[in-house]
C-alpha cells in the first residue's frame, strides 16, 4: 500500500465536490484525507486528496477517472514532484503538572505552539507534514492522555 497526494482543481459549482468524493466511493478507492477551498479565482476550487492505493495502475485510473468528470480542470499527483505539504493538528491533552515541562519541550522541538491552557487541559497546535504530525502524536501519546484530536488533512502545492 502506498500513500498518494492528488491536487485537483475543479469548478466551484453545485455538485462538483460530491462528484469527486462520489467517484472514490463508487469505484472503491480509499480517501485518507481531503481538504478543499476556493482559490484566488473564486470560480475554481482546489482540493487535496490523500489516498492509499495498492499500485501505480490504480493511481493512473483515479487520475483518468477524475479527468473524466466534467467539472474537473486539472489533476496533479504532487507527491512525485518537489512540493510543500502541510497539515495542521490541534491536540487536547489532559494537563498533568509533572509532565508539562516534557510536553513543552517536545512541542518546541516540533515547532508547535500551545494555543490554550486551563487547569485541566492543554491544547497544542502543530503544523507540518503528515508524517511529522503522526510522529508527534506517537511521542506525546506515550506519557500523556490525549483527550481529543483534530487534523485538517493535507494541503499541498508544487514548488514550480
Amino acid at each position, binding site marked *: 500500500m502506498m500513500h498518494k497526494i492528488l491536487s485537483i482543481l*475543479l*469548478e466551484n459549482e*453545485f*455538485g462538483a465536490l*460530491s*462528484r469527486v468524493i*462520489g467517484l472514490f466511493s*463508487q469505484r472503491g478507492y480509499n480517501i485518507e484525507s481531503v481538504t478543499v477551498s476556493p482559490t484566488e479565482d473564486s470560480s475554481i476550487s482546489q482540493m487535496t486528496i490523500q489516498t492509499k492505493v495498492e499500485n501505480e*495502475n490504480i493511481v*493512473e*485510473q483515479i487520475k*483518468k*477517472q477524475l*479527468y*473524466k468528470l*466534467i*467539472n*474537473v*480542470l486539472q489533476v496533479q499527483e504532487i507527491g512525485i514532484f518537489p512540493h510543500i505539504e502541510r497539515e495542521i493538528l490541534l491536540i487536547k491533552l489532559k494537563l498533568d503538572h509533572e509532565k508539562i515541562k516534557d510536553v513543552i519541550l517536545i512541542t518546541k522541538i516540533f515547532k508547535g505552539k500551545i494555543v490554550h491552557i486551563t487547569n485541566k487541559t492543554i491544547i497544542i497546535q502543530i503544523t507540518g507534514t503528515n508524517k511529522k504530525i503522526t510522529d508527534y502524536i506517537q511521542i506525546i501519546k506515550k506519557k500523556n492522555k490525549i483527550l481529543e484530536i483534530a487534523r485538517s488533512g493535507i494541503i499541498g502545492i508544487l514548488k514550480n
Partner: protein
Amino acid sequence: MKMLSGSEMVIKSLVKMKVKYLFGYPGGAVLDIYDALKTVPNSLKHILVRHEQGATHMADGFARATGKVGVVLVTSGPGATNSITGIATAYMDSIPMVIISGQVASHLIGFDAFQECDMIGISRPIVKHSFLVKKTEDIPETFKKAFWIASTGRPGPVVIDLPKDILDPLIKKEYIWPENIFIRSYQPIISYDPKKIEQIIIQLLIAKKPIIYSGGGVITSHSEEELLFLAEKLNIPVTTSLMGLGSFPGTHKQNLKMLGMHGTYEANMAMHHADLIFAVGVRFDDRTTNNLLKYCPQAIIIHIDIDPTSISKTVIANISIIGDAKQILKQIIHKLNKQKIENRQKILQKWWNKIKKWKDIQSLSYSKSKTYIKPQSVIKCLWKLTKGNAYITSDVGQHQMFTALYYPFNKTRRWINSGGLGTMGFGLPAALGVKLAFPKEIVICITGDGSIQMNIQELSTAKQYNISILIINLNNNALGMVKQWQDIHYFGRHSHSYMNSLPDFLALAKSYGHEGMKIEKKEELKPKLKTAIQQLHKNNLIFVDIIIDPLEHVYPMQIKGGGMNDMQLKKRETV
C-alpha cells in the same frame, strides 16, 4: 429580446435542438412544461409512456438507432427514481441522452417536501454529468451544454433537474439562445499522437496471427467503413463484441462473429492464439475476457478508444491511442496506402488455415428436436425473412444470446440491446423508440417470457401511437438464462427460475388492442412468421408467442475462470 417563462424556454430550447420526440410522463413538478408543450404540437412530439423506465428505454432505442440524443421528461420524486434503471442502461452503453426531471420549488429543496428527491445525488454515479438549474435565464444555456456533453466524446446521459419555481408561467425572463458555448473543464479529445500511427502500421504488417476486435465504439464513431477497408486490405479476421455487432458485416467471410462468454469457437480461439489484437472501441469487458490472468498470452495489444479510462483498465495495452476511432483509422489507412504491401493472402495463409479448422467445428450447430421448436431456428428464420435488414431489439437472457449469435447484422445500429447493464425490460420500449425513428422499417423485439413482463405496460403506449412492431416472445416458461446457470453451476437445482403463472400472452396483447399469434409446432414457424411480418404493414403491433424447447442452453460457452480458449461447445448429458 424575447421574454419567456421557464417552461417556454424548455420547450423552445428543445425545438432549437431539433428534438423530434420527447418521451415522458407528467406530474406536479413539470405541469408547467406540459402546459407549454401545447404550443408546439407539430415540431416536438410528446410520447406518453406508461412508466418512466419505459420513457428512458424508448429514448435510448431512438438514440441507438439514429445516433441522435434521446430526450426524456419526468416529474420529481417517483418519476425521477423510476427513470434510474434506464439512465444506468444508457450510461453503461455510452448512449447520448438528456433527462429533464422536475424538482420541487427551490425554497422547498432539502425539506423533504412532497415528491422531493435528490435526483442529482441519486443519479450521480450513472450520468456523464448533471445540472441543477437555479435561475430561469440559465435554462437555454444549460440545455445547449447538456446536449453537447451528452453527444460528444464518449457519449452518455445528462440530467437536467428543474425546480418548479423557475418554470412559473407568470415569470418571464429574457430568452437568449447561445450560439456557441464553452465549457472550460470539458474539452472532448480530438487530437492524438501521430507517432503511434507508424508504430501501429508496423505491428499490423509484421503480425503473423493478427485479429481485429471491434466494439460499440466503432458504431458510435461511424468508423465501420474504415474498419472494413482496413480489414479487407490487410486480410485480417474480425471478431466483434456484443455491442459491436454490425460494426463489421455479419456475413462477411472474414467475420468470426462474436467473442467472449458466449462467443463462437473460432473467435475465442483466434483471440487466444493471436500475436496481435487490434482493438477498436472496446473496453475489454469481463464478459469478453474470461480470466484476465490467462488472457491471450502471446498477443501484442493495440487499443484505440475515445475514453482514456478504458485504456489499460483491465487488459494492459502495448500501444494505445486515445481519440476518435474514425480519424485514427483514416490516418492509418492514409499512411498504409502509401506503402507497398506484400501479398496478404500468402502471409496470413497459415493463420487462415488454422481459423478454418476452428470454424469447421461449427460451434453454432445445434441438435434438432422432433417435438420442440428450437430458439436458434426462430432467429435463423427471422433472418431469412427479413434478409438481415430489420432493426432488432432484445431483452436479456438466452434469447438475447441466440439473437446475437444467429442473426448476422450487416449494418450498424440495427442491433439494439442492453449490453453493459443487461437490463430486462429494455426490449419492448426500445423497439418503440426505434420504430418512431424509422416508421417504414421492420422493427422486431426479441424477448423472453420473463423480460417482456418487466415493461409490458408499454403495449398501451404502442396502441396509443399505433407503433407497429413485431414482438417475438421466445417462451420457455422459465427465466431461461438463470436456469441455465443453475444447471451448470448449481447441479440443476432450479431456485426461483420458473415462471409458473405466465399470462395468456395472446389475450394480453389483444386486451391492449394488438394482434396476437401463437406458434407451437415446428412446421408452423416459417409460414406464421411470414404472415406476421406481412401484417406489420397494416400498422398493427403483432405479439408472437413461440413455445420453444424449454431445456435448451446457449452454447458455445466459456468455462468460468479459464482463458479465451477454454470452451464448452455442447450441453453435458449428465445435466
